[in-house]
């Protein structure tokens, strides 16, 4: 391929390295009615769990300076319904189909991954930022050794390309990234949302029913970029970088920090087709610099 945006990620061909992030684009249908989503490199599905979930009660979204907190709580139809209702449609699109899987117990993760083994998809993105209900709600992705155990056991059953999505709330993002590589992940993606909080001062209560929520958007970009840089330097598997990308300049920063693919999440709420602007702007930048392929600037900083 001679296209300057063509990207290989763990043996998967992306026509460009721009992907819509899990949880912000459903399963792609809604945005497909608004813009040509086949111009995207890929989409990451809404986070699935083994069984359907109704999601969290109360307020689910709250704005903060240049950012957004959410507490949707993984509302989703469950793996089986996804396979029945959505998967064929996504597979029919000319883009990389990334299916995001979460879990609230080890058993759920494994059963979910086993069900997905039998169907066609390009990449399984493993969300380890879920609370483990059997361990007091502690997030699987905080302690390296807990996360390592999840990755090891999923790797044992998963026959797809496996990308582990890291939580920025990890105690040590570098050791977590290394653990994923050691356990056989094909790649990592980071960062998920930052644990955050807002208080309703009139009611003297947290805004969110769960007290804490996940912060995303431009507010987290510099921290996310730093974490992508650190993780990418520490591993030799490819990295999907994300966190507050809303422009082609942001995307190029993540590529220069070492990301092979970038994901756009909150940015789509600013403008549904913002990812297309990122693609066009990135291509124009590479052309203007006479760069033959985006890999030439990857990890250059």
């Amino acid at each position, binding site marked *: 391929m001679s296209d300057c945006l063509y990207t290989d990620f763990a043996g998967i061909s992306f026509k460009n390295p721009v992907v819509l992030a899990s949880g912000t684009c*459903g399963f792609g249908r809604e945005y497909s009615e608004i813009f040509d989503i086949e111009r995207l490199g890929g989409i990451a599905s809404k986070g699935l769990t083994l069984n359907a979930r109704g999601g969290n009660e109360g307020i689910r979204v709250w*704005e903060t300076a240049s950012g957004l907190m959410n507490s949707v709580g993984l509302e989703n139809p469950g793996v089986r319904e996804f396979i029945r209702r959505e998967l064929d449609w996504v597979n029919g699109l000319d883009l990389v189909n990334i299916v995001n899987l979460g879990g609230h117990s080890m058993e759920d993760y494994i059963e979910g991954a086993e069900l997905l083994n039998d169907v066609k998809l390009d990449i399984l993105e493993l969300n380890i930022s879920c609370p483990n209900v059997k361990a007091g709600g502690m997030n699987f992705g905080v302690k390296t050794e807990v996360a390592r155990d999840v990755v090891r056991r999923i790797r044992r059953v998963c026959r797809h390309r496996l990308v582990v999505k890291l939580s920025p709330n990890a105690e040590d993002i570098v050791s977590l990234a290394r653990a994923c590589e050691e356990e056989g992940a094909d790649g990592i993606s980071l960062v998920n949302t930052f644990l955050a909080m807002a208080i309703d001062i009139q009611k003297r209560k947290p805004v969110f029913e769960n007290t804490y929520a996940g912060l995303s958007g431009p507010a987290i970009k510099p921290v996310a970029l730093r974490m992508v840089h650190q993780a990418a330097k520490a591993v030799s598997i490819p990295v999907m970088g994300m966190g507050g990308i809303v422009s082609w300049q942001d995307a190029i920063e993540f590529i220069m920090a070492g990301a092979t693919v970038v994901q756009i999440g909150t940015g789509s709420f*600013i403008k549904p087709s913002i990812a297309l602007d990122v693609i066009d702007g990135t291509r124009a930048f590479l052309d203007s610099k006479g760069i033959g392929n985006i890999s030439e600037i990857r990890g250059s900083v």
Partner: protein
Amino acid sequence: MPRVCSKIFSNEQVSGDFYLMKAECPNDARMGQFYMIRAWETYPVLSRPVSVFDTDGKTVSFLYKVVGKGTEIFAGLKAGGEITLEGPLGNTFPDLSGKIAMVGGGVGIAPFYLTARELKARHPESRIDLYLGFSDQALLVDDYRKAADNVIVDVGGFITDSIDPALYEHIFTCGPEIMMRVLYEKCRRAGAGDRLYVSMENRMACGVGACFVCSCKTSKGNKKVCKDGPVFPGKEVFGL
């Protein structure tokens, strides 16, 4: 669903925190639908869902209340300025005829101007009574009188006290959730629970059904207010 940068024709304070904005925007918006609106770049991050007050096909107008940062920015916009409109989005009030009541509370009166006009145009024989409830000051009552057969106004009390659901074949409502819930209970007790349609409001992020932020519990499972709604049978939402 087009996204257009629109020129503002007018943007005037109606009363207190309420404003009426009219923008140039070729559209086929229908009763009960809304637009995601923004007049800024990346901050605030989210666009604001605002229901359609009126349309003539070439322009669209919005009645909004200043409640936070986004609507504060809207209030400061001048004629000749620009806003970005995405829409029209969501479903519509059902196309029904007969004796119809529309019950709006506060800024929840907004969708009923177009809804009354549209239903009157489709079914001239229908009778439409508008019930408008305000906490401190009535607004646009003369305009609403032109759109409906009868307008009942309540200021400072409970508009739900003014209506006898048994008199109507269909009842539409939009406003504070507590008001709509009280109205549903009143309808149910009058044996008219099935006749009520509610327009739900919720915080939204994408506005098109992709992000699961505006989910609403219904008797048919979770529904997306932006895509499956905003209009639902009252019984599905409040009859749980």
